């Protein structure tokens, strides 16, 4: 099939950037979205042009590197799917596809479609861990965890930190990401000693990094490739208010 791609090009952090149109022919419906961009880049290189920079690593939906806003939706039209797992069979001959980077002050563009997501690492550093004494590994079942809690914690732990939640949020909030970590660690016994401190410090760091505040619109969970539920944010709110002693 033949496509028209409109892609955000930006030489570097200081460049203003712009949408540039590229026609691309003979795209196979079996290609992944990123393979389609690989084909475009080969063509650009042959033509002596600068290839489009975009993030990717595993290409199997587990690393969270790929990060494209496709026709206005982070990770494109297919629910619970990363960009790298999206296939061109979802498009038809003659389609125009707009491709943009995540847009947030906290995620500045490095080049073209690549953004700097260090802000997420800083949120994790503020509390996304447990302190455990080193030594020999404890017995796997020494600390019992209720099944329902273990399941909810595991579901939250599937977050790959891609940042689609921030990209989709009308407020540019990173609350779903933060809440996934609060849920993951807050529901298991190992996370209890630091539970209050964790939520206060992670929310504080989130706010300092110029993310917006959550207003419960739910855009984040709709685009999340791992389907992290909105209730994680409710849990974060509850923990936060409790830790603030109100």
């Amino acid at each position, binding site marked *: 099939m033949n496509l028209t791609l409109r892609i955000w090009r930006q030489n570097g952090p200081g460049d203003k950037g712009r949408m540039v149109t590229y026609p691309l022919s003979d795209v196979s419906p079996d290609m992944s979205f990123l393979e389609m961009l690989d084909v475009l880049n080969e063509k650009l290189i042959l033509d002596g042009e600068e290839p489009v920079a975009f993030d990717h690593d595993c290409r199997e939906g587990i690393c969270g590197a790929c990060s494209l806003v496709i026709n206005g*939706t982070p990770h494109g039209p297919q629910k619970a799917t990363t960009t790298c797992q999206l296939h061109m069979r979802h498009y038809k001959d003659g389609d125009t596809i707009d491709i943009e980077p995540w847009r947030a002050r906290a995620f500045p563009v490095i080049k073209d479609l690549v953004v700097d997501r260090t802000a997420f690492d800083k949120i994790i550093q503020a509390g996304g861990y447990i302190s455990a004494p080193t030594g020999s590994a404890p017995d796997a079942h020494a600390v019992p965890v209720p099944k329902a809690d273990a399941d909810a914690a595991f579901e939250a732990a599937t977050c790959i930190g891609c940042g689609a939640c921030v990209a989709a949020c009308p407020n540019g909030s990173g609350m779903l990401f933060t809440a996934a970590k609060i849920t993951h660690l807050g529901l298991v016994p190992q996370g209890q000693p630091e539970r209050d401190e964790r939520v206060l410090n992670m929310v504080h760091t989130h706010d300092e990094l110029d993310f917006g505040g959550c207003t419960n619109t739910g855009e984040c969970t709709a685009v999340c490739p791992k389907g992290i539920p909105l209730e994680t944010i409710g849990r974060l709110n509850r923990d936060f208010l409790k830790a603030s002693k109100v």
Partner: protein
Amino acid sequence: MTRSKSLTRSTVGKKAVMAVTGLMLVGFLFFHALGNMKVFFGGDAFDHYSHWLRTVLTPILPHEGFLWLARVGLLAAVIGHIWSATSLALRAKRARPVKYAHRKPVQGSYAARTMRWGGVIVVLFVIYHILDLTTGHLNPNPDGGPFARLSADFAPSRWYVTAFYVLAVVTVGFHLRHGLWSAIQTLGRSNERREKFLKGVALGFSVLLCAMFLSVPFAVVTGLVK
């Protein structure tokens, strides 16, 4: 972050302020709508209710004492609500300096997407509404009693006033449809199992409240109450 500052400085704390003040305002709206139902017992009953509001709890409180206490509380809630809403809206603006060229709302309801402008419309309406029916300045019958002002307001020839009232009430309905559930989620009382049910309750309550408010101009325009 110290605990005391976390409430007003953090995004989550600001939202909690928005939720609590919003719920106070919802409580007020419900009793306001309920009180308006007096109109169906006749103009005298309506005027009597208005008089009662000014004399209730006297002589423990001075004349209109209860009313002024309520007004101070409401004003505080409105200020807290608008302060947190404005602060979060400005923050959201700052958080995305470069807009998307192609933007599509994914899932958020119409109500969720119009909270900010809806809130502004509601506040403008409230100012007009007070000057119209409380102080009488903008009412065609400023010297009449409460029911006389009401009838003058919704006279068929002044259809544009009635239309504005309808628009404002529907705007409040949309605001509450998202706001009510949002407040519960903000206070950490929603979860995945309850979410659908709570959203249903928020919708049902908003529809009921709109119906109660709208029934009054409807009754006057159609001559059901005189």
